[in-house]
Structure formats: structure tokens, C-alpha cells
């Protein structure tokens, strides 16, 4: 009996490793090409047949992109994305207070409305949004950019956060109320802290959504000193020339710190999503 079970377990483990290998290849294959290209001189980037490993390994591309400007872009990206996350979480926590109260009328229309507001295509959104930002004095400032980012981060944040908050058992809220806390007090002091992992998860999602953007940064910022990293990367794509090696190098550099942060934050992120997923 135990031999069959052991064999079944071994086959199962083997299957798991095969699947894991397949996933690793799928995810990392293109990344491998990115990294090797960043280590190639221009003459090797496009070779026939393609070279999987650089024969003329060079770090020149990395040296070329590690400039003070790149550092500035990186810092700007971090500032803008952090600020966006804080702003977005603040607004969505406020919104979720009302949206988690079952007694609130108009809850469903608001939720649907929030989602619909996310639907407008960027190309159509940009010019009027720009004009609105100009009127409000939000142009060419990183703060203005954070506000503009609300258009595509806030709706999703509200939806996701609400899911996590609704998962907190109501008995805990009832207990808090019976202890004499007001409705908002119960929300703020009991429910939200319990949903901290979920809040962190939504925060990370918002951060990454903001991290990717280049269109808004391009349109709303003018000063080169305020630009975010994706714009710095796009500068390597010229009208007639593309600096392939440098492009790949800076992209690789872009990925590393985020990967580190995510690895560290993974503990909270996964746990956070777990908490929210117990109950829809």
C-alpha cells in the first residue's frame, strides 16, 4: 500500500517540478534575452544566426546608462508612485467606509459608476484632462501627476479594497460598536487595521500601475528634471536610431529594485490577498 502511495507522491512531485520548469522558462525566457542583449555590443545584438550568449561580453551599456539623469528619473518615479499610492489609499479608504455600509442607498450605482469611470480610452481622455489640469494649476508638477494618476488607479483600488474590507467578519465590527465606538471609529480603528495586509496588497497594485505609465508623465510634465523613468527609457528610441544595448540595460536596472521590493513584500502581499479572499 505504502509503496504505491510513495510512487504516486514521487510522480506527483516530478510533475510539479516539470510544471515549475515550464513556468520558469515561460516567464524568464524573454528576460534572459533582455539581459543578454544588454551585455552585447551593437554588432552582436542583431546577428545571423542569433547569439544566445554574448561572445563579446561588455558592460559598456550599463556604464552608459548609469548617469545622474537616470538616477533622477528613478527617484522621480519612486516619489510619484509612492505619492500616488498614499493618495489613492487615502481616497479609497474614505470611499470604502461608505461603500461597506449595507444601509447606504446608492451604493451599487456608485460602485458601477466608479468602474465605468475607468473605461474611457486614454487617447480621448488626455486633451480635456490636460486642460482641466492646467486650470487647476497641476501641470508640470509631480503632485499634479499623482492626481492625474487617480483616473486609472482609484477606481480599481476602491473595488479591490472593498473586497478585502467586506471579508472582515461582521462580528468584529459588532463587538466594536457594542464597546461604544462610533460607526466610523469601528471602521477606522478595528476593521481597517485588520485589513492591513489587504491595504498593503492594494497599495502594491497601485504602485505598479503607476510605475508603468509613460503617457501621463509625458503629457503632464515638461521639466526634464521631473520626469519618470519610463520616459528616460523612451529617450533611447530616437528618430532613426535605437540604442538597443542601453535600452535593455536600463530596463534590466529598472526591474531589479522592484524585484527586490516585491520579494521582501511578498510575505505581506500574499497574506493580504489571502485575507481578502476568504469571503467575497
Amino acid at each position, binding site marked *: 500500500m505504502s509503496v504505491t502511495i510513495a510512487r504516486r507522491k514521487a510522480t506527483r512531485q516530478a510533475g*510539479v517540478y516539470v*510544471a*515549475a520548469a515550464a513556468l520558469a522558462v515561460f516567464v524568464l525566457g524573454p528576460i534572459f534575452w533582455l539581459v543578454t542583449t544588454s551585455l552585447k555590443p551593437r554588432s552582436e545584438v542583431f546577428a545571423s544566426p*542569433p547569439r544566445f550568449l554574448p561572445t563579446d561580453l561588455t558592460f559598456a551599456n550599463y556604464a552608459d546608462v548609469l548617469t545622474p539623469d537616470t538616477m533622477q528619473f528613478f527617484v522621480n518615479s519612486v516619489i510619484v508612485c509612492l505619492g500616488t499610492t498614499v493618495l489613492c489609499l487615502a481616497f479609497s479608504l474614505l470611499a470604502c467606509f461608505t461603500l461597506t455600509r*449595507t444601509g*447606504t442607498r446608492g451604493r451599487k450605482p456608485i460602485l458601477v459608476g466608479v468602474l465605468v469611470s475607468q473605461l474611457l480610452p486614454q*487617447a480621448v*481622455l488626455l486633451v480635456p484632462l490636460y486642460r482641466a489640469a492646467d486650470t487647476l494649476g497641476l501641470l508640470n508638477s509631480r503632485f499634479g501627476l499623482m492626481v492625474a494618476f487617480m483616473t486609472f488607479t482609484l477606481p480599481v483600488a476602491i*473595488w479591490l479594497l472593498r473586497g478585502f474590507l467586506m471579508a472582515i467578519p461582521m462580528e468584529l465590527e459588532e463587538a466594536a460598536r457594542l464597546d461604544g465606538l462610533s460607526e466610523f471609529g469601528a471602521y477606522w480603528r478595528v476593521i481597517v487595521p485588520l485589513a492591513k495586509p489587504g491595504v498593503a496588497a492594494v497599495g502594491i497594485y497601485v504602485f505598479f500601475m503607476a510605475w508603468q505609465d509613460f503617457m501621463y508623465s509625458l503629457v503632464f510634465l515638461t521639466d526634464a528634471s521631473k520626469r519618470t523613468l519610463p520616459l528616460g527609457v523612451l529617450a533611447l528610441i530616437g528618430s532613426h536610431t535605437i540604442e538597443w544595448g542601453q535600452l535593455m540595460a536600463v530596463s534590466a536596472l529598472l526591474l531589479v529594485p522592484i*524585484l527586490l521590493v516585491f520579494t521582501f513584500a511578498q510575505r505581506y502581499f500574499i497574506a493580504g490577498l489571502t485575507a481578502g479572499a476568504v469571503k467575497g
Partner: protein
Amino acid sequence: MPPTVRTTDVSMSVAERVAPGQAPGEAIAQEKRRHRRQTALRVLCIIPPVALLGALVAYPLANAIYLSFTTSSFINPDPDFAGLVNYKAILTSDTFLTVLKNSLIWTVAVVAAQFVIGLASAILLSQKFKGRLVLRSMVILPWIMPGVIAGVLWKLLYDPYLGPVNALAGGLGLVDGNPAWLGQASTALAAVVIAAIWKGFPLSTIMYMAAYQGVPNELREAARSDGANAWQVFRHVTLPAMAPTIRTTVLLTTVWTFNYFDLVYVMTAGGPGTSTEIFPTYIYREAFQNVRYGVAGAYGVISVVLLSIFTVVYLRQLNKSGGLD
């Protein structure tokens, strides 16, 4: 799991709240005041976010709708009201049907594949094996790469003579010659779909991983002790427990994919011909190359209407199965 009705109106009966020595009428009045304050606070909290979104989105949306009824373009700064001219022209054009078809194929294929791969990888990454933690961290990489860089990278990969896809596929005997995946109308859409799946699936993986791990083990144990095999446990215990997360993720992924611009534009700009022309690329072209605000606005409105219909229908389905509450 049957949805439990959640209520936050923790209200005691008035009788229970009457303080000693207090007249009942006074207690009722006090109750009414408390209720009003409660409502006022709820309204106060929802106003800033809604106002912000309204200011940011309502004006552009209204502007787009207004422009869609005009002949506004870059070189025509004083737009003439033209009624439904733009809509008529769009809805009767062949291009619109192509864009619609491509957008549907694009969205459905990417969302479905991201769901399957996301779910499979989530389950995989929840098993115990050596290197699991490393793989779990690595899996986020495609998602955090900015779309334009991913597009440039995949264009490199797909190069018919100088890229690794054909080198590998040819070497393994899977493919004959050097097909230009992005340069042929017959394969371009599939090629960008694959790139998009790679780019976006990690989000689904993470969401489903959390949901999967959130299913209480007791439930699984109970089912297994009832004689269920692994597949039955998955089908009847795990999957239903993950349902709320799945529903939300699929909804968000659909909306997000439908409007996703960066990747396709960098890889093919909507070509060859119109084989990868989807709503976002077509709208971008009208708004920024041809600079015809009226036409772009009309396309934008149609796009919003399509997505809204989907959203409302989807949510109504959710409501029926009690998912939104």
C-alpha cells in the same frame, strides 16, 4: 459557500437604548439625530473620492461625447455640429467591423489564457517544492516591465531571422523557414496576444494564489474524508471558495485588456493592414495622427458603451449568484 448577508446597521431597538429616566419620545428624537449624523458622515466620506473622479473623468467624458457630434479636428478649431454623422460613418465602415472583431478576439483570448495560466501557476506555486520562493518572486517580472519595453523586447524576439523565437522553433523542427510572426496578417494578432498573455498573467497568478491559499484546509479535509478525489475536491470545494476573487479578477482583466494600448502599438501599430487594429490603437491614431477629435470621440464613446454593457451584464450575473452583496 452561501453568501451571508452582511449588515452594518448594528441597531438596537429603541426600547433597549432608552436611558433610565428618559422619555421614549426623547429617545426616538435622539435616535433620529444619531441616524442623521451617521448618514451625514457616510456622505461626507464618499464625496471627496467621487468628486475627484468626477472632476478627472466626467469632464473628459462629457467633452468626448460633445466632440463626437461635431466635425472637430486639429485644423478645424471651430467645430460644427454634425449630429450623428461620425457615428453613421463609423458604424457602416468595414474598418469598424474589423476593429470590433480584433478587439473581441484580443480581449477574450488574453483574458481566458491569463485566467487559465494564472490559475494553474497559482496552484503550482502553492505546492511545496525547492525553489518555490524564488519562482514566486520571479513570476512578477513580466507584469512590472513597462509596456513599451515589453513591446520592444517581444519585437526583438519575433524577428524572423535575427530573433530567438524562430531560431528555437526552427531548431526544434516546429516551424519551417522564417515566418514573420508580426509581419503577416495571418499571425500578427496571435503573436501580440501571446506577448500580452506573458505580460499580464502574473497579476492573475498572485490574486489566485492568495485565494487558493485562503481556502480553509478543514473544508478540503472534510471533503477528502468523504471520499472525494483531488479533482473533485478542487471542483467542489476549492473553486467555489475562490469564485469571488476569480470574478473580480476576470472583470478587471477584461476592462484593462480591452483598453490596453502600449504593447500592441509598439509591436505592430495596428498592422499589417488592419490585422491587429484594436480600439485603443485606432482611437490613438485618430486622436494623435489624423487629429480628428470628432471621430476619435465617437470611437471612444462607442468603446465606453461596449465596455459598459459588458460590465453591467457581468455584474448582474454576479448579483444573481449573490457575489456583489
